[in-house]
């Protein structure tokens, strides 16, 4: 029962070789913290994105462990250095139900 989770990855800053730009990733994941209850008073099981991995040209540059304090939608913005010739940035994620996803964005110089 995996639902489609819309995600988005965008860049801010000058797309030039060697420049530091900001990559902004967000995912419209429900991020159920496990503390809330539904309308009939039953606890909603915890289901958050707990791991995010960021690969730049297939090289791991960032690993993030997320806790229940991350918002829904999740938002994470981090800097990266633009490699020569550009490349591909991949953001991989996994949630508590085992659902995985990938957001890919090309760095075009």
């Amino acid at each position, binding site marked *: 029962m995996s639902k489609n989770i819309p995600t988005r990855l965008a860049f801010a800053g000058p797309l030039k070789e060697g420049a530091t730009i900001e990559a902004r990733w967000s995912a419209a994941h429900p991020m159920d913290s496990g*503390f809330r209850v539904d309308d009939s008073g039953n606890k909603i099981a915890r289901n958050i994105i707990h791991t995010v991995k960021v690969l730049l040209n297939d090289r791991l540059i*960032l690993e*993030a*462990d997320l806790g229940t*304090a*991350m918002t829904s939608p999740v938002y994470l913005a981090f800097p990266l250095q633009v490699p020569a010739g550009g490349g591909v940035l991949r953001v991989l994620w996994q949630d508590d139900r085992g659902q995985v996803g990938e957001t890919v964005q090309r760095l075009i110089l």
Partner: protein
Amino acid sequence: MNTSSTQLHLQDPKRRHSLLMAAGAWLSSQATAKDTPLSALSAEGVELVFPRLADTGNAVPLQANIRAPQGANLKSLRVILPENPNPLALQLKLHGDMQSYQLNTRLRLYASQSVWVVATFSNGLERANSAPTVITSTACLDDS
């Protein structure tokens, strides 16, 4: 009856003073017990942008600007909300060689508190800074 007797006690300056002292000692012992490892660290090179007052705890934007000391790179970053049920909000492990780092994210807060950001550098050095905020509603419980 209880209230009036408390008020009477509080009006007695000696009694009030001892009560305040006891409360202060208790508060500071609580604070040190929880914060000593972090507050003992230098805050140099760790700057936080965090709203002093937020309407709700549902989405509080945090910006952390980290500057590594000379000759070192940033290796990991932790965002800690001590009053949250799960205090560790975010942990980053960096595999690049970034000397300055700007992290932007949004956090859910259970209560008014200080957010702590702890940076670990490649030379083993740890630095931490905190920023307080006041929220008017919690993010952890359902609206009532």
